[in-house]
């Protein structure tokens, strides 16, 4: 059974032309980069894969289960257990500390409280000293690491990252992707990263191009 299967997926937003997405099969632990110019549907693809968006056409399966066959509640629960997401703007909860962001994600993934594991993750990403800081007091680079730590804290089967290097220089971009793949590799999670940054594409097992065929 594949980790991700997309078949005949297309989505249309009101007032915009339909986006056709390529058929996609991703295996367990596979690391895939999705590239393409802006407007080709990279973010939409990630949202569909995460079950946040239901495509107007086609089927998306995660570990053999069709997202469309699940109720809203089951979809939310499944996403919490199986998918970790690094958003382009990080989307950390600003009312609570970095450590609490990790503990919250871990709890929503259905794991018991384990502060040590969350601290280990922060330590591994070099931001343990920021554990009790609220996200609004983090630099962009620190927030990015915190977002990666949160995404992997729930031990997901699939790690999705939307343009995680968009604001970074080449060295930092490679460093962040390295951390992401290392963390995902440690838990055996599959990874799908969207980017228009060609410099990091070589770090993945496979590349999928949008807007110009795969």
């Amino acid at each position, binding site marked *: 059974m594949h980790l991700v299967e997309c078949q005949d997926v297309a989505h249309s937003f009101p007032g915009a032309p339909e986006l056709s997405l390529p058929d996609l099969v991703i295996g367990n632990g596979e690391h895939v980069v999705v590239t393409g110019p802006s407007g080709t549907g990279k973010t939409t693809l990630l949202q569909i894969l995460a079950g946040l968006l239901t495509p107007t056409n086609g089927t998306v399966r995660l570990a053999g289960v069709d997202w469309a066959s699940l109720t809203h509640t089951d979809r*939310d629960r499944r*996403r919490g257990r199986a998918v970790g997401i690094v958003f382009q703007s990080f989307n950390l909860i*600003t009312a609570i500390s970095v450590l609490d962001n990790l503990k919250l994600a871990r709890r929503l993934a259905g794991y018991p409280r384990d502060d040590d594991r969350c601290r280990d993750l922060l330590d591994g990403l070099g931001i343990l000293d920021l554990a009790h800081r609220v996200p609004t007091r983090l630099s962009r680079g620190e927030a990015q690491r915190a977002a990666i730590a949160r995404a992997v804290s729930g031990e997901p089967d699939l790690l999705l990252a939307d343009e995680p290097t968009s604001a970074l220089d080449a060295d930092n971009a490679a460093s962040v992707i390295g951390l992401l793949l290392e963390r995902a590799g440690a838990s055996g999670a599959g990874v799908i990263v969207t980017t228009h940054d060609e410099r990091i594409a070589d770090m993945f097992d496979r590349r999928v191009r949008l807007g110009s065929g795969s």
Partner: protein
Amino acid sequence: MNPVALACAYLAQRPLATLLTTLLLALGVGTISALLSFDHQFRDHLLREARNVHLVVGSKGSRLQLVLSTVLHVDYPTGNIPWNEAVPLLDHPAVSRAVPVSLGDGVGAFRVVGTTGVFLEAHGAHLAKGRVWDGSFEAVLGATAARELGLDVGNVFATTHGVVAGGPEHVHDNYTVTGVLAPTGGVADRLVLTSLESIWEVHDQRIPTAGDRRVPGGDGDAARKDEGPTGDRRAQDDSARGRNLAPAEITALLLTFHSPVSMLRLAPEIDRNSAMITASPAVEIGRLFALLAPALDVLRGFGIVLMAGAALAVFTTLTGVLDLRQRDIAILRALGAVRAWTAGVLVAEALILTLAGTLLGFALGHGALAVIGIVIPQADNAGLSGLVAAPGEAWLLLAALLTGLVSAGVPLLRAGRGNLSEILARN
């Protein structure tokens, strides 16, 4: 991290808005809570004090004033009645207990009441120390009066003319404290009790008594007959001074009847055939509440308006931050939180806000009553305390929590309609 902890974090993130909303709610709840408790305590106090007095006989004038001044000791006396007109009522077969009272003097903020030992029985008062007055110019102090005046058994004090503080002092007639009462929780705590003759003598209108001028219930009659709760009650008899005096007038006679029917027969008779009038404490207290009702209703309405304003503030607070919260709700959903979980955060936020406001309101309301009880002697006299909760306050708590839930309802509905991918894509 659970919904309640996250809700607390959200409230802490906006300390000023949280504080102002809580204070606004607290003002509404505090006003209503204070009114409910005041109403409850006042009613309870009046009815308790009046419980054992079925009828007050006094001089013609306001019946309500007669009851307030002689039973509750909170108003000016209406005037005096001739002692010889009162005497037949003391031994009337329909009367089970008769307590004569003479008012007119004070000690500091405390009233001096000339009476007989039966007064103690009527108020369920017991001596904490010393003995009952045994002649003129001896006095027993209520617990609060003794404490606040700093007087103890054996001390001597002078009274002032008039029932309010500040009157001219009776410099030549000093009283000796012979006893102090244990706290009763009633008006007796704030009274200075002495014999009827003392009140009369202190105004220098002594009239030697013949056999018909004795003081029934004072001169060993009721007091000796019935040792009562004090156990050591002794007659007040001026024989110790070699004189046998009785007053020419008293302020009122407090009567308790064997049956209500006999009271209903006797009261009109007194009203018709004497210079005195009768007043039923139960009726007059009912009349007092009827008089106070509009004012209390206005205050209660004011409290409800305040509370409605507070509910709007809670609603506005929750709705106002919804845009921000919609983003967080979407993030939480993306992290795997089901709708019930995210709804729990909003509901917890509303309930914490309303619960904090309500509890603070109760504290403010009861704190205000406690301060009023300390600052205003009449309120203390009425037994007003900050520690007594009215049964209606439980409903107030429920109403406040319901307000919180309703306030969370609209943001909840709006949050539920949000499109996850759109909200997340906006950021």
